[in-house]
Structures are given as structure tokens and as C-alpha cells.
């Protein structure tokens, strides 16, 4: 395996696994569309951070992202609970508005030869992430994209290992969790912040739409094939890794965008699982 391929794949897998771990709880809590909204709404945050630092500087990006991600959930809540607009509409108008602002900022303030263009917003540029290597002394220590997502991945891992009980009880039965005195609001806040930080850190590589695929598809597949939460988390990571590897080689083979084909592979695996399960059900009856 070539070094560049290895670096690209490593980035893709780290992003996919981070998204899958968080996505499991989005799927279980039926708040996938809120995750979808967040991944679109962070665009103005990214655009502003990019303007301020005129490169994808991770510190600015992190702050911008966390702010806009949490802001999105707050606006959705405000529309839904205070202004009494139905929930689907609250989600729909909030993320389209923020996404529109992001596009306006990008087209107004960036010129044509910057890295942040409309294509990147939708698809990301996974296959060119290896160009930006970080070299310390004489040693190559990875790509910048990898080092942007890797710390987030570690935080997610720690959060899920230690917060497993809290997350599972809130996902299953939020009222009951409250009745035990568990600080539901606090755990939710951390969770949603992590979702927004993750989408921002993967943004450059996979774009705003395809990141939703990584959040949803592997967890949804795992949810179909297992009845145990721990297995669901592990399976969704394995599914994510498999789709990254298959997708990546396919992208080289037929020369198409890597991030898109990864989602297509992962979606095909989902449909395969769905059909097998339904055929099994029919045969049993």
C-alpha cells in the first residue's frame, strides 16, 4: 500500500468511526434529523472561522463549530417549544437558513482560488487530504486532516466509554433518567457539541451532506442486525471501517469521489441487511 493511500484511508476511517459512534445514539434517540441539521448549520461557523484565520485553523474552527452546532439546537428548540411551530418545520427552516447564510458568506468573501468553495461544501476533498502532511523534523507524523479529527475521536471514545450508562439510559427512557436525578441536560449538551465538532472536523474531507451518511447509515445497519447496544456500537464501527476500505479502493478503480462511494457502499450494505432480514421474516411465517 502506498503511503499516501494509507494516510487518506486512515483519515477516512477515523472520521467514519467517530461519526458511527455518535450516530448510534442519534438513531436510538430518533434525533437523526437534528444531527443532519447540525451538519448543515455549522457552515457559517466554518466560513467565518475560515475568513478570520484564512485557513482551516483548527482552534478557530472548533470554537465556531461548537457555537453554531449548539446554536442550531437552541433555535430548533426555541421555534418548537416557545413559538410552538411543529418540530419537522422547526428543523427544516433552521438548517436551511444557516446553510444559506454560510453559502452567502462563502460567495461574498472568498475569491475563486481559495480552498473553501461550494464543491468542497457538498462533497469534501478526501482524496486530496494527503497533500497536507505534517512533518516534524525528519519524521512524517500524518496529515493535517487526520490530526484534526483524531483528538475528537479520542474524546468521543472516552465520552462513550465513561458516559455509556448515562447515554444509554437517556436514549431509552429520558423521563426515568431524570427521575434518578441524572443531569440529562448536561449530557445532552456535551453530546450535541461533540456531534457539531465532529461534523466540522470531517467537513473538509467528506462535506456537509455525506457526513450525515456516516452518522446514520452504519449505525442504522448495526441497529437492524443486533439486539445489544454494545454490539451495535462495535458493529457500526466495523461496518464503517469496511465501507471505508471497500469504497476507497473502488474510488481508485473507477476514478470517482472517494467520500461519495464510501457512502454508496455503506448504503448498499444497509439495503443488503434490510432485505436479508425481511426475507428471513417472510420465510419464518
Amino acid at each position, binding site marked *: 500500500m502506498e503511503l499516501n493511500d494509507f494516510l487518506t484511508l486512515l483519515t477516512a476511517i477515523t472520521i467514519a468511526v467517530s461519526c458511527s459512534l455518535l450516530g448510534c445514539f442519534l438513531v436510538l434517540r430518533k434525533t437523526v434529523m437534528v444531527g443532519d441539521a447540525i451538519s448543515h448549520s455549522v457552515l457559517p461557523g466554518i466560513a467565518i472561522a475560515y475568513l478570520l484565520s484564512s485557513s482551516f485553523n483548527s482552534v478557530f474552527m472548533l470554537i465556531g463549530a461548537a457555537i453554531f452546532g449548539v446554536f442550531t439546537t437552541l433555535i430548533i428548540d426555541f421555534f418548537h417549544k416557545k413559538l410552538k411551530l411543529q418540530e419537522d418545520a422547526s428543523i427544516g427552516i433552521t438548517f436551511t437558513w444557516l*446553510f*444559506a447564510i454560510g453559502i452567502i458568506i462563502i460567495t461574498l468573501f472568498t475569491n475563486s482560488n481559495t480552498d473553501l468553495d461550494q464543491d468542497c461544501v457538498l462533497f469534501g476533498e478526501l482524496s486530496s487530504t494527503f497533500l497536507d502532511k505534517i512533518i516534524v523534523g525528519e519524521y512524517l507524523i500524518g496529515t493535517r486532516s487526520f490530526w484534526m479529527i483524531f483528538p475528537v475521536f479520542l474524546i468521543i471514545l472516552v465520552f462513550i466509554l465513561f458516559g455509556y450508562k448515562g447515554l444509554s439510559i437517556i436514549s431509552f427512557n429520558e423521563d426515568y433518567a431524570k427521575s434518578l436525578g441524572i443531569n440529562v441536560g448536561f449530557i445532552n449538551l456535551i453530546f450535541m457539541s461533540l456531534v457539531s465538532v465532529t461534523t466540522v472536523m470531517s467537513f473538509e474531507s467528506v462535506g456537509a451532506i455525506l457526513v450525515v451518511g456516516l452518522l446514520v447509515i452504519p449505525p442504522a445497519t448495526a441497529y437492524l442486525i443486533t439486539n445489544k447496544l454494545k454490539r451495535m456500537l462495535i458493529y457500526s464501527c466495523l461496518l464503517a471501517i469496511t465501507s471505508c476500505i471497500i469504497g476507497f479502493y473502488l474510488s481508485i478503480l473507477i476514478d470517482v469521489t472517494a467520500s*461519495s462511494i464510501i457512502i454508496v457502499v455503506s448504503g448498499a450494505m444497509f439495503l443488503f441487511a*434490510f432485505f436479508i432480514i425481511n426475507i428471513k421474516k417472510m420465510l419464518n411465517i
Partner: protein
Amino acid sequence: MKETIIYFFTDSVAFKVLIGITIISATSGIVGTFSFLRKKTLVGDAIAHSLFPGICLGFIFSGTKDPFYLMSGALITGWLSVWLIDVLTAKSKLSSDTSIAFVSTFFFAIGSVLLSFISSSTNGNQSGLKDFLFGKAATMSNEDINVFVFLSLIILLIVILFFKYFQLISFNKEFAKSIGIKVNLIEFLLSTITVLTVAIGIQSVGVVLTSALLIAPAATARYWTNNLPKMLFYSALIGVLSGVLGVFISSTKENMPTGPWIVFILFFFTLMTLLFSSNRGWFSMVRKQRINRKKMAEENVLKVFYQLAELGIKNVTYSEFLNKRQMDTKELTNTIASLIKKGFINNDFQFFKLSEKGEVEAARIVRFHRLWELYLTKRLNFKEDHIHGTAETIEHLITPEIEKELLKELKFPKSDPHNKIIPY
């Protein structure tokens, strides 16, 4: 500004854009109203993403950018996405939002694979396809406009012909089923017009933002009226207004995107309506609460004057008042000032006294309070030490009609549970 307007009506290209946007926005507003009422607006978002592979397929099969082929492709994948969402939700344990998110990203990814496939196999003439991603409001051709007009007319015709059915299904699906309406067929029609609408919508604002054209006008119109035909009209109107404004704003500067500006203005309309709408808006609610607070304060002050008069104190000072009832001093002085202005209280040096008009008003409030206390103990079996709290509030909102009923039910009582006289 004037020049811009003149420009739009004299320049044929710009005028065309305006016509195109108007048709698209009006249609989206109308169709979106049904999606909104059925709480299925996010399906519109999934459809928008799912049209992308269809458009690419249309291009691959026909080799041209003829709107007819692209639209046919879009229609097929659009339908497929609606069907798949239904199947996934019905035949698996996945919730509908997971199914929607799955379908929208999966189809979109297929589309982007097809697009990069097209761009690597042909040279350059696929550029028009990308317009579907972000919309191409500024570069619509005559052919495009003809397609829009044609499709919009079909959509409008379907809406008019099936209006009664759409209304029924949006309002109460179970009931529609129970009276023998073929709900599946009507829902199929509704999804079809939604797919068609989204298909023309993505040309103005692009894949991601199209759902805003469906949601925002309907959500806004919902706050303006309760009547469905009116709601459809308002929704279309709001859509058109935002569309036209968006086109104007984006034309003021070169390279300014039209779609995002339309969405921005739509959001602005929705937010303003939700905040300022006269009956259901946030501020009207806050205002009502403030008026209530003022009314309560005034009535409470009058009541205390009455109670003091019962004890023989007719000329009241601030300190005497505050002995009888705790109240924020600033609120008290403000309230008394307002009562003087209304002629309920007369001011004589440091003494305050009820006017004749004020006496009548105060008696009315005390009567309500005591009637309610009596009602609570007699009818609702409240204990005597627990009635005062509710009566403190309810006295402010008893209407003459409710008073009549209370009097009838309690048979014009003379005194309240604490043996205080009820004034008439």
C-alpha cells in the same frame, strides 16, 4: 433601487428569471402547505437530495441537458425515494427520521458518484448538471421556463381537482380512510406533485435549500389564518414575495447567489410572523401577559381600597395601604397614578380616596373574589383555608357572563365563606 426595477422589466433575461422564480415559489408555497399540514416537510428534503442521481441518469441516458430527460430521471428517483422511505419505516424497526436521513444521503451519494463518473468520461459539457446542486436562478433559459410553466400548471390542476381529498387527508387520514376514500391513491398523487415541485424548486435554490421553499411559506401562512384556501393563497404569496426580493437583492452585487438570499428572506418572514403575529405570535403573548399584570395590579389596589373602606378607612395613605397588602412600592405608585388618570381614585394631598366610579369598580372585584370563594367551598369542596389563593387570580378574569352563572348557581348569596358581605 429604481434602476434595478426598471432593469428587471426592460432586460428580457432578467425578466425571465423573475417569471421563473415567481412560478417556482408560488407552486412550492401551495404544495408545501400540504406537506406542512401532514408534518412531512422533511420528506421534501429527502426528495430534493434524491433527484440528483435521477438528473445524472437522465443525462447519461440521453447524452443531452434537455430538461425533459433530466426531469424524467428526477421524477423516477424522486418517486423511488418516497417509496423507499415508506418501506423502510414500515418494514423495519427504524424510525421515520432515520429512514429519511438514510434515503437522502444514500441517493445523494449515488448522484455524486454518477457526477464524477460523468465528468471523467465526457469533457466539460456536464457543467450544467452542477447547477442543480446550488440552483441556477440567474441563468434560466427559455426552455427551462417553458418546462416550469407546464409542470406548474399540471400541479395546480391536480390541486384544484383533488382539493377536497387533499384537505381531508391533511386534516385526518384515519377519518378519510373510514369513509372509503382511497387514501393510498391520494397520497401517491400528493407525493407526485411534491416530487414535481421539488424538481423545479432545486433549479432555483439548489438541493439543500429546496425544503425551505416548501416549509417556510406554509409555516408562516399557518400563523396568518386557520382557513385552508386562504392559507394556500398566503403561502404562495409569501413564496413569491421572498423569491422576487431574493432576486432583487442578489442582483445588486455581482456573483451574489440567488437561492440562499431567497431562503434568507423566507426565514426572515417566518421569524417575524412567529414573533409578531397578532394572535399567536410571541410578542402578542408577552404583551397580553403584561396587560394582564397591569390589570391585576390595578384591580388589586382597588380591592384593597374597598377592604380599607369596610374597616372605616376612606382616606388612605401609602403606609396604610402597605400595611394591608404587601406590594412593590414602585408598582404601587405607578398603579395609583394610572388609576387617578382613569378617574377611579382621587388624590387629596397625601391621601387617596375612591371616586364614585372607583367604588363601583372596586365593589365588582370584591364581589367576584367572594363569589368565587363561595363557589369553591360550596361546589368544589375546597377547605376554607385554601380558597384565597385561587380566588386572587380568578377574580381578575371572571366575565359578566360567568358572574351571572355563578349568581344563579349560588342563588344570590349574601356573604362569603369568611362571613364577609358580598357587595352588589
